[in-house]
């Protein structure tokens, strides 16, 4: 097994909405995009990050003394504040916290450690035609680690799925695809300008990659991330459907906006930029679905 390490922020077992069957989803840390709606902000940076869940904190201040970098400050009312410049995500404060109010997201793991976990559920994969999904962050942002993990999974005979934002150089993506049975390809915005505005990068490379992947006959499901006011107008949906048709009409899964990740921003000391958005009403979802269906495309929510 390759002696490569990588940053993982979660391994979710009995994952049932990330590809066929029962799966384990390995979430790799680090992402080249900074989508304003991101519901996993802890996945963006590649290094371990401390999450401070203020509402659970009992203000015992045990963490203040144990922190080797003096990164925790006591505010006048007894509340705590993490100095993000000093915190290195070492996790000493996590171990000492009696209220489970502190967590470190991101762990440096070896290929062997990850494989040890995912192979435990081999029988579940077999019985359900499931397998292993690599997600993120952006899984391809740690290409060597990803490649090593995929190779091991294929050695074990597991079905592999790659969940990707598509923003990756083709010469990095191509060797990875050799070990991938299904790609869940995120589509966020067809308009390059708006894409740049909401995600921080252009969609040019992303769309080129989508076409290349499909031309290689690898099964693809498009995951359309729908965000109110960002990409949900009739015009946006029309463009999405036309893009899908251009690709040969792969199945589209709608990933609907939700606000469940907002608290994470606070606990990471980050700012949430989409304060005013509200989840879609059922009628709106139906409307979007019908619009896509009218193009003869297969769509699931």
């Amino acid at each position, binding site marked *: 097994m390759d002696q490569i390490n990588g940053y993982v922020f979660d391994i979710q077992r009995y994952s049932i*909405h990330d590809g066929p069957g029962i799966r*384990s989803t390995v979430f790799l840390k680090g992402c080249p995009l900074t989508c304003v709606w991101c519901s996993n902000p802890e996945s963006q940076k590649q290094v371990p990050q401390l999450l401070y*869940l203020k509402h659970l904190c009992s203000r015992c201040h045990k963490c203040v003394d144990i922190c080797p970098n003096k990164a925790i400050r006591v505010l006048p009312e007894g509340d705590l504040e993490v100095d993000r410049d000093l915190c290195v995500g070492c996790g000493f404060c996590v171990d000492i916290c009696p209220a489970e109010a502190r967590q470190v997201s991101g762990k440096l793991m070896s290929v062997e450690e990850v494989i040890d976990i995912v192979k435990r559920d081999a*029988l579940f994969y077999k*019985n*359900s035609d499931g397998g292993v999904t690599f997600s993120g962050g952006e899984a391809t942002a740690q290409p060597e680690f990803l490649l090593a993990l995929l190779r091991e999974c294929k050695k074990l005979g597991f079905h592999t799925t790659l969940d990707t934002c598509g923003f990756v150089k083709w010469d990095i993506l191509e060797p990875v695809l050799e070990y991938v049975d299904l790609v869940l390809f995120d589509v966020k915005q067809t308009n390059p300008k708006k894409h740049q505005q909401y995600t921080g990068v252009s969609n040019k490379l992303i769309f080129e990659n989508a076409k290349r992947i499909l031309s290689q006959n690898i099964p693809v499901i498009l995951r359309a991330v729908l965000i109110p006011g960002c990409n949900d107008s009739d015009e946006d949906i029309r463009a999405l459907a036309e893009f899908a048709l251009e690709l040969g009409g792969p199945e589209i899964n709608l990933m609907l906006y*939700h606000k469940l990740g907002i*608290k994470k921003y606070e606990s990471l000391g980050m700012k949430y930029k989409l304060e005013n958005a509200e989840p879609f009403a059922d009628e709106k979802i139906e409307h979007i679905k019908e619009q896509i269906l009218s193009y003869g495309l297969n769509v699931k929510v």
Partner: protein
Amino acid sequence: MKTSALRKVDEIESYQIAEKPVLTERVERLKEDFINTGIKTSVERAKALYDVYLEAGGEPIVITRAKVLDKYLRNMTLYIDDNPIVGSLAKYPRGVNPFPDYNEAANKLFSSFGDMDVDPKEKELLKQVDVYFRGKKQVDIVNKIFHELTGLDRQEYINHGVWIDIVGVCLGLINLDYGKVMNIGLSGVIKEAEEGLSRLDVTYHEDFKKRDFYIAVIITLKAVIAWAKRYASLAEEMAKNEKNAEKKSYLEKIANTCRWVPENPARTLYEAVQSFWFVHAAAWIEQAQGAIAPGRFTKYTYQFYKNDIESGRITDEEVIELFELLCIKFSEIGIQYSTEVYATGAQQHTAQTFLIGGLNEYGEDATNELDFLWLEAEKRVRMVQPSTVCAWHNKMSEKFLLKCADTIKMGLGKPAFINSHTAVKRNLDRWNCTEAEANAFTIIGCSQSAVAHSMDNVWGGLLNYAKILQLTLNNGKDPKSGKQLGLQTGDIDSFKTYEDLESALSKQFRHFTKLLRTVSRVSENVHAVYFPTPYSSALVDDCLKTGKHVLDGGAKYGGDADCLAGAVDVSNSLAAVKKVVFDDKKITISELYKALKDNFVGHEETQRLLLAAPKYGNEDDYVDQIVRKSYDEFYDEESMHKSFLGKDDGRPWGVVVAGHSWFGMHVGAQPNGRAAGNALTDGSISATPGTDRKGPTALIHSASKAMDNTKYSGNIFNMKFHPTAVSTEDDQKKLLSLVKTFMDLGGYHIQFNIVSSKLLREAQLNPDQYRNLVVRVAGFSAFFVQLDKKLQEEIIARTEQCFA
């Protein structure tokens, strides 16, 4: 739509998904009545009991017991309501019969339905009967003999929460041969008894004893027939005065049916159901707090359904309604609890275990149309009883499994799944029965497999392992009362190594297991000698052949059994001591002792260390192996003791009923970090709430090796899922793959509770109990209790949507 063509299971499509369960107007009304009707004690059975005992003189007890049933069935006040299936245990709907002959509960008035209401005049009579039976009650006789044998006071152990036993309650869990009555009528069974009687040469002692049994059987069977005919007469009477033509014909149909069954063979499905109901209800009247299982109902009624469908007499919709009505009847059965069983909070748990799916005698899939229709009825009527169990096997159709998953979605925890292959193997290993008997097994109690209508499954008692650990850490003494309940196995300071603790615990464990076995065997003997059940025995193989009642060795197969509670709590505790005290040496054993004594107050850091130690349910052998060892040890000690009949078929059951909360009240702070008084872990191989943090597949890995499922007769394993995990057919298929994997790994019983908004509210109030509760909504996954209030509210709102 009437159809004459018989459909195969594969062709049943229409009942696959019924989004909004539609109940007929009368089922809706009956269900409403059930919910709104108060629970009342009926004193009529106690009166019949008292009268018969006063007149009994010196006659054999089996005859007296038969006469009690006879007198009650011939005199009880009857009623007929809008449920065309007639027959009830008492004169009130949801009426409960006290059993002053068995236990002290007649004075306490609690039942499986909750606290009971009793008429003041009737209460006086009840007191009188209660006084008459003092010293003669089953519980009194057992206490006396146990004291004679051991010098110990049984009640003391119960008061301290060391065990709950079945003294004063049912003799066991039985499954009767309902199919036989449908096919040959009770008249046919009477004929068998008469033939048995005629075969005897009563000048020989053995045969002379059998004579009384056969006579008693005939008395009771005739009583049940007479009881049914009284309903027929009542219906006729009511019909005479009825002006409404529809109601008149409804009553006439009841009259005609009850005049015919259960005396004669059933001719239609409706008659078969009515026959079943009389037979079933009478068994609940004969003995205190039974756990009488309908078992393979959809198999032994199938031929009647088939005939009805072929001749166009019934439609599937009508069958569904009939089944809904039967579910209401099952739920109306209430039992009176002894004080301690009541205190366990086993509300509505009457263990009327109902098997669907399963195998036929050749080992082929036994699923038929009625299994589908039954699930559809359950989905629509949503009653707590019966306890429906799908006997899963690897030849089961996906269509039927999806129907099960679709019913689970309703959130009633039904059906549970058990592994047929394990059940068959267990039957063959344990009882050496025929292959046909092993294949066509049934389910009784909570999840235990059994040979259909051939067994005397006697439930012994439920041992509280957590209490035993507490006593071990206190040199056998209860720290609260100061009573020396256990052996003196050394002060806690004398445990220099983990093995020292383990060996002391083992001594205590085996000591109490042996004591409980003694109680159980004494109790079973008292049941057998003082409280024979000729009626139920007549419908259990081979009692009529051998001329012996069930507990006299008449049952073809059997075996008494005790159950172990707290194995997971104790194993987590042992792992914590091993890790924190002996391996990591973070605290001394004296510090541990002090922390437990102070219930962790002022020892929060110690509690945190103990909570952080390995816990069962996370695929960690450090602790999982201790769970296995605990169950193996209990099995080993139990199997060293023969059954009360001197047979080597006594084996423990891995079920906990609902003892975990009551037991928890009697156990102080534990080394697993649990504070004093909190409930123990539910189920027998479920993880302690809040401690399985690695997801469902890891928990399944731990659970599938927690006990030897061929040795144990059953286990209870509960898992919780958010409704989004079963909302679509695709999700349901994944859940079914999870079930299959659990079974492939050697698991036996698994049950799914679907998280409701109510449960999430509960989690908000008691976060410690729900630390493991993961909610996954729209790609978002989090431990619920770690979310802030606003977010929790949002999740609750989304959960409600799933049930809307």
